[in-house]
């Protein structure tokens, strides 16, 4: 906006304002009515949905589902959409940071005098696209199933080792399932494909030692399982054994 356009805006706005109504009581009445609606919605949600607690936080436990509050789903889903490990940093921090900077600086690069949405096709399209993208990612996050179920057929080489090996494999499968690994990793048909790599055949890629090292010292955002290995070495060993057997 150049100086002339600025002055024209201020002049037109001054005219519109002088023809308006005082804030009190006209706008205040509308705002109060809206506040009543907000209050009613909050009270209704509290009564209908309640505030139930899950089980107590337990750093050593193996049954957890790291799911954020629903309005963070779109950030969380961004991690799954962008899969290559080299780009994970881009997904976790890069894209949100760039979007935030663009949002902060919006009035400094969109300086045109036009305010009507239908005459600002680029801004309006971009806005609708962003809302659509956030909505879609939120939907994906909400639709993702509970990450506590894994059904992988017992591999042939485990079956050939006898019933003890199969029992250990099954126990490990349960530990992995309850640990919520499938929230970020794919196991055959189960789990989410990202942010973490698919683990369907992780045993073929990594030896048991390497899997154990990764579980103890993972790269972010994966949580460490060192607490589990200290509190319950048996379960941790079953977990490693199960993952190493996936070939």
């Amino acid at each position, binding site marked *: 906006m150049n100086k002339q356009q600025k002055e024209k805006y201020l002049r037109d706005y001054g005219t519109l*304002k002088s023809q308006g109504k005082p804030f009190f009581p006209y706008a205040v009445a509308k705002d109060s009515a*809206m506040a009543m609606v907000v209050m009613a919605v909050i009270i209704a949600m*509290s009564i209908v949905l309640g*505030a139930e607690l899950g089980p107590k936080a337990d750093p050593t436990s193996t*049954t957890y589902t*790291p799911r954020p509050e629903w*309005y963070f789903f779109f950030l969380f889903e961004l991690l799954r959409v962008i899969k290559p490990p080299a780009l994970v940093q881009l997904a976790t921090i890069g894209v949100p940071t760039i979007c935030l900077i663009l949002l902060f600086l*919006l009035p400094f690069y969109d300086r045109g005098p036009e305010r009507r949405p239908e005459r600002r096709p680029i801004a309006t399209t971009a806005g609708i696209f962003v809302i659509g993208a956030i909505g879609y990612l939120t939907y994906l996050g909400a639709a993702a199933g509970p990450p506590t179920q894994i059904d992988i057929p017992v591999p042939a080489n485990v079956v050939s080792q006898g019933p003890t090996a199969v029992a250990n494999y099954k126990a490990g499968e349960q530990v992995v399932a309850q640990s919520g690994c499938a929230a970020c990793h794919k196991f055959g048909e189960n789990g989410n494909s990202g942010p973490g790599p698919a683990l369907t055949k992780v045993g073929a890629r990594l030896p048991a030692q390497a899997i154990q090292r990764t579980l103890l010292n993972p790269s972010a955002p994966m949580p460490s399982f060192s607490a589990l290995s200290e509190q319950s070495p048996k379960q941790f060993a079953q977990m490693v054994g199960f993952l190493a057997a996936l070939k």
Partner: protein
Amino acid sequence: MAKIKLPPVPSNPLSSPKRPGKEYGPSGARGHAAEAGVSAVDWIDERTSLSGGLRWAMFRKVPKGTNWFYTLGSATMFAFLSQAVTGVFLAMYYDPSATRAYESIQYINNNVFLGEFVHGMHRWGSSVMVILIFLHMGRTFFFGAYKYPRELNWVIGVALLVMTMTMSFSGYLLPFDQRSYWATIVGVNINGTGPLVGPYLSEFLRAGPYFGATTLSRFYAIHMLMVPGAIAALMGFHLYLVAKLGTTAPPWIKAKGPEKLSEEKVTVEA
């Protein structure tokens, strides 16, 4: 055509002044009560000069054509106030220690009068506030209301959005159940992958290299002292700018000057 009867004009709207020498002021108990209220307000105003600012903020004009979309900002503020009030009541019973936090929330839910109700209002109020702040931002964006001269108010608004999300994130840990604990660990780890400040930020959030006993009290301090204070201060500045610059008119409303002025003719007498 029947004539409409004109409303009666008060015979004497102004009471005649009293005779000199007689005492001025109200008479009777009601009059004295009214006088007491006025003088109390006068007393405060004499010492604060608040009435001018209040008149400036409350009786400023709002342009023609503003509609219900223009209530979203104040609705967001109202949701914040609701969060503040319910938060105060929760803080009366909440214990931000890793060993007692969960039990104290359980106590609120099961033993405190209307405890679960207030807890639920606080929990779902956060969702309502996030939805309202996004709607308010959408209105501002599509109506081009962030343009000159309101650029700074947009920047403050985005800062308020970030702080609202910070409130949601820090509040999510406080009930200290499994969901909140593990979601927070992953969230802090995600912060840690950021360039340059990432590792420092996640260490600050965790109060150390690992998730420990002090992490919860740190989140508690962030959630109920640091960020809400900043939100309240910025909200005040946001509102000041709204009052100073005026509420925008919807972009499709055209300004029409007073016609008398535009038809004015200048005649030069000889």
